Structures are given as structure tokens and as C-alpha cells.
């Protein structure tokens, strides 16, 4: 048999609660982090990612106590991102039982951090998250930081190549303009990053249905398909309902993979 694509609920932490944004703003409360993790346990999700969207912009430390509580509760691998600036923080986060630490703005400003983190905890636990947006009328993607408010002026492919060379074990690209819009993944973006890398990649931003996930898997095979809104909202009024494909639905998604191979 084979390695499966990963379908990853990606949750945002804001003021100690889980929220979902649209276009990186208007956070809507979706629930208590521990409760939501318990629901995802029951649904046997592949893995989970949580990003604290306050930590970097407010200059805060990661909330280690909350992370430890989440890690204990979580029966699937957990990735944490938000406000990670030093190797000491990376080690502390791994120490409380989180499997993967996501580095974003601090790693772009100071690439040495990625290398030092990989050296300290191993590449497999170091994830680089790039929030990206295409230049106007172009398919060149640029990297943004601080909740998409600061344009680094660097391209996604440049930063991705540098990150994996420094030892990142996974690259997550987040399509800023598709955040919360549920209109489908940016397949151009997924194609570019998939071709340019030799570490696992995960695409975030835009998934609005299982068909969108299927489309991603059909085109790119074993890839990480991450989504926020899709797994916390139901219906056109965006009522909060934590959900995840059933094992039957996941088997159907895998068929599209077999079809490719």
C-alpha cells in the first residue's frame, strides 16, 4: 500500500479561543480549543495544526500551558505556530509534547533560526509557514508576515528553497486571498510549490468542499490538504459545526490518488 495524503484541520487561536477568519480578518469564534480537539479526536483526523494569530503581532510568548493541555488531549500529531522566535522556544514547545513547530515571520527575518531549530529538534519537527499572495496580474507569489500586513518583498519560491536548504521538514503555504472564502485551492500555487520542493508540502486557503480536496490530491498526489472553514462551518450561513470527512469519504478521496498513480 502507500503513504496517504494528509487532510489537516487548521485552527486559529485568538484571545484564548478558536476563531476562523476571512482574508486574515474578521475572526469569528468557533469554540474552546480543548473541546474542539476532543471532537477531532473522535473523528480520527490525520493531524491538526493550531496557529496563534495574536502572538507575533502582540509580541507575546507562546502560551505553553495551553499547548501542553492541547498536546495531552490530542490523539493525532499536532503542529503549533505563532510567535516562535528562538530555538529555546522551539525546544520548549517540543518538550511539552507538540510534534511540529511552525516558524514564519521570525524565520524569514532570521533564516538562521530555521537551521538552529532543525539542528536542535530535527528537521521532521520544523515547519515553515509562508503566507503568500500573487503580485497583481502575475503568478509570482510574494511572502507576507504579521497576519498579512507586511510584504517581505521576497518570492515564495525563493523563501521555500532557502527554508528547505536550511533544514525545514515541511512547508505550508497559505493563500492569503483565499482565506475563509471556500472557493477552492489555488492550484497554480500548489503546482509551483510542489515542483520546487523535496520536503512534504501542505496547501492552506480556499478549501470549501471535499471536492476541492479531491482536486488537490488528483493533481498533486501525496500532499497536505489543510483547511479551516471547511472543518468548522456548515451551510451558507456559516453555522459553527466541527466536522471532518468520514472514513468512507476519505477512502473515496484516496481512490482519486490511486487513479493518478
Amino acid at each position, binding site marked *: 500500500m502507500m503513504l*496517504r495524503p494528509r487532510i489537516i484541520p487548521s485552527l486559529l487561536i485568538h484571545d484564548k479561543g478558536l476563531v476562523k477568519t476571512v482574508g486574515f480578518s474578521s475572526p469569528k469564534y468557533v469554540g474552546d480549543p480543548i473541546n474542539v480537539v476532543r471532537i477531532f479526536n473522535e473523528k*480520527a483526523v490525520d493531524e491538526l495544526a493550531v496557529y496563534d494569530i495574536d502572538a507575533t503581532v502582540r509580541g507575546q510568548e507562546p502560551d505553553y500551558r495551553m499547548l501542553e493541555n492541547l498536546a495531552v488531549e490530542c490523539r493525532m500529531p499536532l503542529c503549533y505556530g505563532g510567535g516562535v522566535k528562538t530555538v529555546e522556544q522551539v525546544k520548549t514547545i517540543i*518538550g511539552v509534547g507538540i510534534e511540529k513547530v511552525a516558524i514564519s515571520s521570525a524565520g524569514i527575518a532570521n533564516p538562521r533560526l530555521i537551521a538552529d531549530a532543525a539542528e536542535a529538534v530535527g528537521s521532521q519537527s520544523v515547519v515553515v509557514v509562508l503566507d503568500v499572495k500573487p503580485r497583481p496580474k502575475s503568478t509570482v507569489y510574494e511572502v507576507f508576515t504579521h497576519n498579512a500586513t507586511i510584504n517581505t518583498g521576497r518570492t515564495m519560491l525563493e523563501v521555500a528553497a532557502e527554508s528547505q536548504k536550511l533544514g525545514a521538514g515541511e512547508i505550508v503555504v497559505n493563500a492569503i486571498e483565499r482565506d475563509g472564502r471556500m472557493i477552492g485551492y489555488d492550484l497554480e500555487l500548489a503546482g509551483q510549490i510542489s515542483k520546487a520542493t523535496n520536503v512534504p508540502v501542505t496547501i492552506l486557503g480556499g478549501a470549501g468542499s471535499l471536492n476541492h480536496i479531491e482536486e488537490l490530491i488528483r493533481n498533486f498526489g501525496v500532499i497536505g490538504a489543510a483547511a479551516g472553514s471547511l472543518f468548522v462551518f456548515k451551510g451558507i450561513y456559516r453555522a459553527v459545526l466541527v466536522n471532518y470527512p468520514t472514513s468512507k469519504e476519505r477512502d473515496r478521496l484516496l481512490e482519486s490518488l490511486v487513479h493518478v498513480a
Partner: protein
Amino acid sequence: MITVVNYGLGNVQAFATLYRRMNIPANIATTASQLENTTKLILPGVGAFDHAMELLDASGMRSTLEELVLHRKVPVLGVCVGMQILAKSSEEGKLAGLGWIDGRVRRFDESTLPRPARLPHMGWNDVMPKNGAQLFNGFEQGCCFYFLHSYHFECASSDDVVAKSEYGMSFHCAVHSNNIYGVQFHPEKSHGYGMRLLKNFAEMQ
């Protein structure tokens, strides 16, 4: 009493929580004296090989663990890097491993990986146990676990291999020699399959 060895790496609490949820007594040992009443040991770990060995050496528990495992034959289950350090050495590091199972840890060969070749090997993959392997009781219909690693165990003797998995090539993902067991994947993060495997380890005579 199942004792999870806390030498500063890996999700010790997750193991203890899972066992307690299954009504199996479990505790966490951070010092040598806390290892005293153990009947089974879990040796977790994530991260780099040398980092794991350094922390284990610095924990003050290594000699007690060696006494328990090698002389008193207390069963031990190494997980992820906790499994890799059971080997004699690793291509990832310079330090010697515990050497409790004859083998070494090697990096995946990028030339054999499916295109595009991606490392680490990350995600859910099928595991194929050897017939009759106690650790995999109840998995006759097949099983699937979460992996996160770029290096894999290579046993010197095929007798010590209890399960294989495939990523570009077939590799040894579960090992067993006497009272010493190891799994490369993360049972504590593999939902029902993982709970079943941890229960099997707990119930083994």
C-alpha cells in the same frame, strides 16, 4: 505499572493519558528512583538522535534503565527516536546508541523514493506485521500508523524485525528482541490502531 521515561523528549503525557483512559495504571518517571516499581517501560522521543542520547545521559536514569532492561528483563517499548536509540549507531549522529538491539539507523535513500522524492516520511502509512507478532494482535485486517522521520532502523538480524512499512523501499518499522521492542511510528498519535498497540504491549506476558 507502566512507566513512561521522561528524559525531556517526546510526548510522555500523551502515553500516560492514553493508558489511564484504558484503565491501565501508568506513571511518568523523571528520576531513577521513580523507575523502581515499574513492570513495563515506554521510551518515547522525537527529534535528533544525538540530542536524545545527550538528554538520556543527562537524565541520570540511563544506568538504572540498563539494569532494568538488560538484567531484570523488564519489557521496554521505544517509540520513534526512542526506538532509534535502541540501535548501536545512527547516520544522523555521532554518538553511540544504547545498542540494545543489533542494528543501525540509516537515512532514507533519496534515489529510491517516489518522485518527487520528499523527506521526511510524514503521514499515515500501512504497516505489515509478521504473523503472530504479539504487539500487533488484532490487526489481521491491516493497520495504519502515523510516521514522522527521515531515518529508519535497519536490523542486523531479520529475526528482530516484527513489522515492515514501505516508503520508496521496504523498511523495518517495528523491532523486537527478547524483552526489547521498538516502533518507528507514533502509536500515541495513531488513534484506534495506536491505542490497540499500546494495550497489546501492556497486556503482554
